[in-house]
């Protein structure tokens, strides 16, 4: 549209026409080259999001979506916010909701642990030693392996008679820890029951082990970008290594660290496969370990409610997840900008 306008509004002069031709070309090819990505994003993300928002106000419970949409939208009991109210007023559903949230947030304990460890190893690897990049490769290996394979491996490693207990406590079975299946559980089957802490720790350990390499590489890249002359100036002024690290290196590394925190929190909110694999959740919701996304799966087409899927409710849960992640991200950016001042 714009391209056509510019052609019309210009007087007919030879050199200018050439420029306009170029502009037309620029606009045409700009749109053409981006069109696959634009179409893909529009159809599979934006239209999907709009339908998700619309469905969250309806009573859609599976079946062909086209038939449903063409048959007109129907709210439940004439209340478009029925499902939004349902989550927070139905005692059962509310418990699912905050248990999933509690578990997902609890696993985020792994984020600072992972950051501390990766920072430590990144510093170890950037000291001028030979073969530092070999370690980088070894530490990154877990990140490329499939979480399904890794989860089943860890599930076996942490068995009562498994390798971890054998390595830690030898043959003395009285000391063995029941990591995955705590016995003598007192209290209810609830997310915050401390009896299930060992189960959560296995997931956190696995996450730290799997994610360490990626974060290390980010930090190694950041560390090698730190201005060497600043470090030298600090050491001439009499700062020791520790002070230099905190006052010179960390501030310059902060953008990398901040990026890492934001992506880890976004990823952490979406944890699904690991708890489901480790504890054979069978597409349902396990109060002890499941994260929030397990709820969406549970009410979706493949969930253990498969006979009675409730897509409208699943859509509502999805919208709430998107809102929560957006708020969390904004809060982090707000805190970051406040810290800058």
């Amino acid at each position: 549209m714009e391209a056509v306008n510019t052609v019309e509004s210009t007087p007919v002069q030879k050199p200018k026409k050439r420029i306009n031709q170029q502009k037309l070309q620029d606009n045409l090819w700009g749109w053409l080259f981006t069109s696959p990505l634009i179409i893909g994003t529009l159809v599979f993300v934006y239209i999907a999001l709009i339908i998700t928002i619309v469905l969250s106000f309806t009573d859609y419970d599976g079946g062909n979506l086209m038939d449903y949409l063409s048959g007109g939208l129907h709210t439940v009991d004439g209340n478009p916010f029925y499902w939004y109210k349902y989550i927070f007023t139905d005692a059962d559903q509310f418990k699912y909701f905050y248990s999933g949230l509690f578990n997902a947030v609890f696993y985020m304990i792994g984020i600072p642990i992972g950051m501390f460890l990766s920072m430590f190893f990144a510093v170890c690897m950037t000291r001028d030693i030979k073969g530092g990049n070999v370690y980088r490769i070894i530490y990154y290996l877990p990140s490329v392996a499939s979480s399904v394979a890794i989860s089943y491996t860890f599930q076996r490693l942490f068995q009562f008679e498994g390798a971890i207990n054998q390595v830690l406590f030898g043959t003395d079975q009285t000391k063995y820890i029941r990591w995955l299946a705590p016995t003598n559980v007192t209290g209810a089957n609830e997310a915050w029951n401390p009896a299930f802490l060992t189960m959560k720790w296995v997931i956190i350990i696995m996450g730290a082990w799997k994610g360490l390499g990626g974060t290390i590489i980010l930090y190694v890249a950041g560390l090698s970008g730190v201005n060497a002359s600043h470090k030298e100036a600090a050491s001439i002024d009499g700062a020791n290594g520790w002070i230099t690290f905190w006052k010179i290196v960390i501030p310059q590394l902060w953008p990398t660290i901040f990026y890492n925190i934001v992506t880890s929190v976004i990823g952490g909110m979406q944890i699904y496969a690991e708890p489901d694999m480790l504890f054979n959740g069978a597409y349902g919701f396990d109060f002890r370990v499941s994260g929030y996304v397990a709820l969406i799966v549970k009410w979706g087409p493949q969930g253990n409610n498969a006979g009675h899927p409730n897509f409208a409710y699943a859509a509502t849960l999805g919208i709430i997840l998107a809102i929560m992640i957006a708020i969390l991200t904004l809060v982090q950016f707000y805190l970051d900008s406040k810290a800058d001042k």
Partner: protein
Amino acid sequence: MSEQENKVSAEIESGAPNKFVDVLCLVLSKLGFSTKYYKGSKQSGKIFMDVLDYLVLSLVGLIMLYPFWWMICASFASSTAAVTQTVIWFVNPTWANPLRNNEAFYNFSQFFVACETRFGDANFFIIVLNTLLYSIVPVVVGVITSTSAAFAFSKIEWKAREGVFFGLLAAIMIPWPSIMIVQYCMFVIFGWTENGLSMWVPGLFGSIMTAFFIRQFLYGLPTSIIEAAKIDGAGYWMIFWRFIIPLALPAMMAQGILSFFGAWNNYLGCFMMVDNTRWYNLPVVIQKLTQDVSATMGQGVVMAASLMSVIPVLILFGIFQKQIIGSLMLTGSKE
């Protein structure tokens, strides 16, 4: 004798209150720490820290590698109990016969059998082909479409450029689990959940993150090449295929391989979006197999299957580790 003398004279010079403190401080100085009586030796201190560094890194490196080693051992173990008791080797002395049926690859052959019987029309080769289809076709085509978008965003001046770019960038804020149910419904309408199209067609359109990364890379290239080509009469189509693709190839390779890993290991996507067992990929097959684990088919089969899903990506990573790590470093320093 002379060593003794040295120490004695050092004690006198350093003025330490007693011999023990003196020796302790001397050792510390050799390790690079300065104390009241001795100045830390920089040279030997560096050696000491290097040794410590290697020790720590190697020890933790072993922890990083151990589960893979364990996976290899366990995939040969004869029963679920033997798998569980594996620590450093699958031969367990309390078991008379460490290998079931004296067949080293019994678990692997069992996995082939399970693939054929459990998943309808599918068999092992179909499942591997599915996984390859899902991870090669969308990745190769998707990286090219992402690069074309990145080219338009970095090297062509067009009207709506900034608006479109931020419109796309905003889309990465939307978490996939939020919209996966509706995506599934859309794929059902298209009929894609029955023939595997749901797993690779969306990928053909490219990915925003890949486009964003390659755009950063293309910014670093001189625009003069494109200007020169334009003067010679080359159109954007030709510039894209003749100049941009070859120049951006390292970044494309690295991004492509990373996407390949993601697609090869994609569990949730295949599990949500595929209704027909004929079109399952490896992670979903492994997950479904665990429900069949029994006395006759021990956990070793699951470990054998897991190993088979892990080995191809490990080999690929080994070949391309330089490019992958380099690309990751680039994201790290750019961000």
